[in-house]
């Protein structure tokens, strides 16, 4: 296994950890806002780290640029979706957002 392969393995495994964290968070967190928080980690870092890992395997510049474009698009989509769902949920049930004020 050469250096590029080793880097790929490390980054992809790190990405997988974030996907696992996102899934566990989605399942275990108590309210929608903390679940959103978990979800965006998978969106941004999970996919991002896997993209970085796979870049070490790409042979052409076009493939690298396409991978980066996919990641940037996923970043934009993920953060905007988080914002939109968060705004939506806040408008519907604001009591969830201020729950920590409760004794």
């Amino acid at each position: 296994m050469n250096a590029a392969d080793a880097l790929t393995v490390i980054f992809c495994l790190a990405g997988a950890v974030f996907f696992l964290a996102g899934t566990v968070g989605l399942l275990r967190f108590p309210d929608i806002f903390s679940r959103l928080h978990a979800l965006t980690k998978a969106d941004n870092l999970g996919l991002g780290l896997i993209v970085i890992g796979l870049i070490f395997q790409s042979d052409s510049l076009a493939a690298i640029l396409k991978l980066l474009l996919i990641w940037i698009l996923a970043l934009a989509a993920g953060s905007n979706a988080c914002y939109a769902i968060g705004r939506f949920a806040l408008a519907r049930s604001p009591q969830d957002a201020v729950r920590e004020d409760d004794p």
Partner: protein
Amino acid sequence: MNSFYMALTIFLVLNIAASMVRVIRGPTPADRLMTAQLFGTTGMAILLLLAEAMEEPALRNVTLVFAVLAVLLVICFVQTAESKETTKP
């Protein structure tokens, strides 16, 4: 290297299967939609890994299509929602 990609892919598919529980539990439509969003992102990662494992560069274009359309469902959900809706558990 191929086995590594395959193992990682299996792990991600298991992730998808596990997060299905949130679709059943809900409780609000927004929660269920979030799960669909996670499905999409995980699916994109799987496609990229398979593109490498199966040596099929066309799969990156499939991923690109997923990435470009990723936000459409959420925008549809947010923009067309009624002002008041039933959020039965």
